[in-house]
């Protein structure tokens, strides 16, 4: 947890943009490398925190960093942005894929053109990416949520899942591991439904409300993305079921804060996107410099060591973090 308590610098949006504008204007000198990251969506607090971490690492390791994503979780828009970074001759292009299949040919083409491609935040299995910078293992994330739910509702009960778009691979992986944990370890837990929203809080609210109607004995609702968290928690508050039904999920502290405090969402599971952005830029630098990435490593600027998992080429930030009413105020993303 100490790693996570690193205070986030108050980098203003404008300042970051101005720095980028200047950076693009001048030709990169010999030592500086250019790294781009394409998130799944632009402008959500999560990716802003990642950008802040990446900017800090960029200043540390002599990297010129640009982050630009689609304005909605749209695979085609993301592909367009990815390709434009490749064409602009960035040394490393990192991406958190919305849809893996859409990106596969583009990743192959980028590698052929001599551009390093890494995935960060979400992976592209089966692609030619060199490295996946992982926040936490999908399995750990799935298991942690299920374990924490069971710790609160007991080993028997009905659980509903509300997720964002069905095309986002990482979300689907977490759902699969939540289900796997329930099946293998908690036979009394029944996952009654998995529904997908269009990214609005309104739809998450609707799915959560309807799930409670369908199962009056429902005990927990898991919101798989930050976009679904306020909606599911608000649904429990509106139904006056705080204490009867718990909500949780992979929700950023800012979107979950009010509900964690009201008791509608007793805990949320995530990691520090600031550290993830930081690690991504560090990994990009190592890759371009041809420095080894192996075993357990200490990254200057990160409190805890990171782990390289050889067989899957995954650079792992660490175990997931659980935010509760006691700890949530230490984080701002």
């Amino acid at each position, binding site marked *: 947890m100490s790693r996570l308590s690193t205070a986030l610098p108050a980098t203003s*949006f404008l300042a970051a943009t101005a720095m980028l504008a200047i950076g693009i204007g001048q030709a990169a000198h010999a030592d500086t490398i250019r790294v781009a990251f394409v998130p799944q*969506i*632009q*402008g*959500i*607090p999560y*990716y*802003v925190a990642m950008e802040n971490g990446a900017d800090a690492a960029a200043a540390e390791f002599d990297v010129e960093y640009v982050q630009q994503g689609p*304005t*909605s979780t749209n695979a085609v828009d993301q592909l367009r942005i990815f390709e434009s970074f490749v064409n602009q001759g960035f040394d490393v292009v990192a991406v958190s894929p919305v849809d893996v299949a859409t990106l596969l040919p583009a990743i192959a083409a980028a590698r052929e053109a001599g551009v390093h491609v890494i995935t960060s935040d979400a992976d592209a299995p089966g692609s030619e990416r060199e490295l996946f910078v992982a926040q936490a293992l999908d399995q750990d994330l799935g298991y942690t949520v299920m374990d924490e739910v069971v710790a609160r509702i007991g080993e028997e009960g009905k659980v509903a899942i509300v997720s964002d778009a*069905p095309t986002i691979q990482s979300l689907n992986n977490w759902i699969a591991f939540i289900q796997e944990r329930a099946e293998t370890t908690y036979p009394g837990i029944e996952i*009654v*439904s998995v*529904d*997908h929203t*269009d*990214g*609005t*809080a*309104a739809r998450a*609210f*609707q*799915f959560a*409300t*309807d*799930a409670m*109607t*369908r199962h*009056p004995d429902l005990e927990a609702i898991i919101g798989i993305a930050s*976009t679904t968290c*306020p*909606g599911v928690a*608000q649904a429990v508050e*509106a139904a006056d079921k705080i204490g009867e039904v718990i909500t949780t999920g992979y929700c950023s502290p*800012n*979107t979950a*804060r*009010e509900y964690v405090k009201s008791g509608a969402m007793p805990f949320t599971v995530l990691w520090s996107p600031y550290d993830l952005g930081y690690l991504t830029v560090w990994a990009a630098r190592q890759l371009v410099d041809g420095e080894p990435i192996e075993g357990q490593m200490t990254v200057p600027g990160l409190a805890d060591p990171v782990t390289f998992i050889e067989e899957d080429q995954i650079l792992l930030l660490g175990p997931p973090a659980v935010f509760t009413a006691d700890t949530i105020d230490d984080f701002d993303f």
Partner: protein
Amino acid sequence: MTSTSEVTGAGAAASAPAAAWRRAILRSPTLEREVALVLALAVTILIFANASPHFLTAGNAVQILRVSVDLAVISAGMTLLIIMGGIDVGVGGILAVSAIFIGRAYQIDLPVPLVVLIGLSAGALLGAVNGLLCARLRIPPIIATLGTMYIWLAVLFLVIGGQWIAGLPRTLGPLVNGSVFGVPAPLVVVAVVYGGCAILLYGLPFGRHIYAIGCNETAARLAGIDVVRVKVTTYALLGGLAGFAALLYVTRLRNVEINIGTNLALEAIAATILGGASIRGGVGSLLGTLLGVFFIKVIQNGLVLAGVSSLWERVIIGSVLLLVLVVEAVRARRGRSRGAPG
């Protein structure tokens, strides 16, 4: 330009208010559609009631009302607009920007009446911009409203700057969650909005001007109707209703998220077309639209309660919409080949 419905619409535009009311009710070109929708809704409800014991309950009905209210409010404005031959594919963007104004106003602790005023006027103003683009500059409505939507969504990104507005107060909560003499509040809200729009459309000269422009804009202009004024007012009205919907949305969900308003315009247009409006203008029904809204929301709700994957929802709504349009097209062709409207 001589299909049955348009001729009827033009007739309505020329007759006295009382006759217009009678015609609207008894000889409405959309009466058949409304009856068909009621039947479709009844069949859908029967199927879902059969599939889930929790579907046909008072609690669930109130839930459906609560989640329908913002879409219903916007669809009323969309109906007037489509009757006028216009359309607003970017109304979700207007709702988004209004929601930001509302959220920020709440955050600096403005008194609630002022927050309401700000929300409504922000929406009306953005709507009026669309109206001016369409009426003064003669930009096709789809293009104009698509263009402004992109600008509004960019505003959303720039203002929110990656931080959602969260934890807003629920001062207007009774509008969605309360009840008046046992009647759920959202039903009262919907009745007031649709009643107001019905008076405007069927009872006032303004409504006849909307029909006239939708049937034949040139003729309307030659007849002395101030087309620009009517158009700007109607777009502004939809904008104002979007502002009102934003108030309801914010009070219900208590946050302004980056994806706010996604799919809203498309759902409103789908409800309006399902309800019997012609995308070519001149025809449309407020009652039909309201039934269309409930049809969409009942399907969304029922599928979850029946345990069917929510991925089917769009398939079903899309198919029903296509079915309606195909039936319409076939009948229009037959009508033309007989050459005898009505």
